[in-house]
């Protein structure tokens, strides 16, 4: 599957790696919902590091939509919330 880290481009990761990523993702969601900036940045960098570790970069000339899109490493909680709130996907 294809994962994009905003500002860094896309990577291909094995479908089987998804379970491991989900655990990290749950922490990230919890941090966003709790509005906890510290936990958010810890969870975000843990998730991004894992994706960078297991994913291989997609060639620049390939054009495919991503299955997952992750915030950029220096994104703040407010920015992410704004991004999601744009389309009303996160209530509140």
């Amino acid at each position, binding site marked *: 599957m294809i994962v*994009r880290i905003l*500002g860094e481009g896309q990577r291909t990761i094995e479908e089987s790696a998804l379970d491991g990523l989900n655990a990290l993702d749950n922490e990230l969601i919890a941090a966003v919902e709790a509005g906890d900036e510290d936990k958010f940045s810890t969870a975000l960098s843990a998730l991004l590091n894992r994706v960078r570790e297991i994913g291989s970069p997609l060639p620049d000339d390939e054009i495919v*939509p991503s299955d997952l899109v992750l915030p950029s490493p220096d994104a703040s909680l407010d920015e992410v919330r704004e991004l999601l709130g744009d389309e009303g996907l996160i209530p509140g």
Partner: protein
Amino acid sequence: MSMGRRLALIFKAKANKVLDKHEDPRETLDYSYEKQLELLTKVRRGVADVATSRKRLEIQMQQLQASGDKLQSQAQQAVSAGRDDLAREALTRRSAVNQQLADLQTQHSQLQAEEEKLTTASQRLQAKVDSFRTRKETIKATYTAAEAQTKIGEAMSGISEEMGDVGLAMQRAEDKTQQMQARASAVDELIASGALDDASQPLGGRDDIQRELDSIGANNDVELELAKLKGSLPAGQQTQALPGGAQGAQQQAQPAAEENQQ
């Protein structure tokens, strides 16, 4: 739902909006390609803007560095002239200058990182735009309405996402650059107001520490000249001519006078 999927959906929704705009999907391809070229131009301009801001910061950093060096040497001069008060003043100002310098250094590295990211993004976008153009022409050449819908949909989602990503990066870089420019103007104003002594000023201009140091130096010069003059006067005239003369000159002149009398 996972964070990543929520974000991915946002990009898909945006791509669909673009797709719905035109009745013939081929028009969507051309429209999108135009937008891509526009974005590419904007990103390149963005890279240039960030570079300009970075260079401006570099010039300010050099000015501040020179200013700090000058204050340091003024402090040394003041100490050797026995003026601790002046030295303290110079060191206080130097520490303010160093503080500013440290701030600018942090911002400089942030800006540099932003510039690198944007450069990479623009290279990636360029490659994708080239690839999109090829794909667009292929789709148009072999166009059958049924097949085209899916192919165009795929290409559009992929490129829209890329454009969305690069667009965000651009916005971020623009915000940072604007902050930096405001900050740079503030430092320029500080330098202009003389609050941060600008080392590019002519020596002594607006610089009270330098003025005092110069006057100490000038006083010393006067004393030295005086001593020299006294030393060169013919003996015998000395005590008469300069009854309250400088001590140093008298000490020097005394043995010579005694020698003459003998």
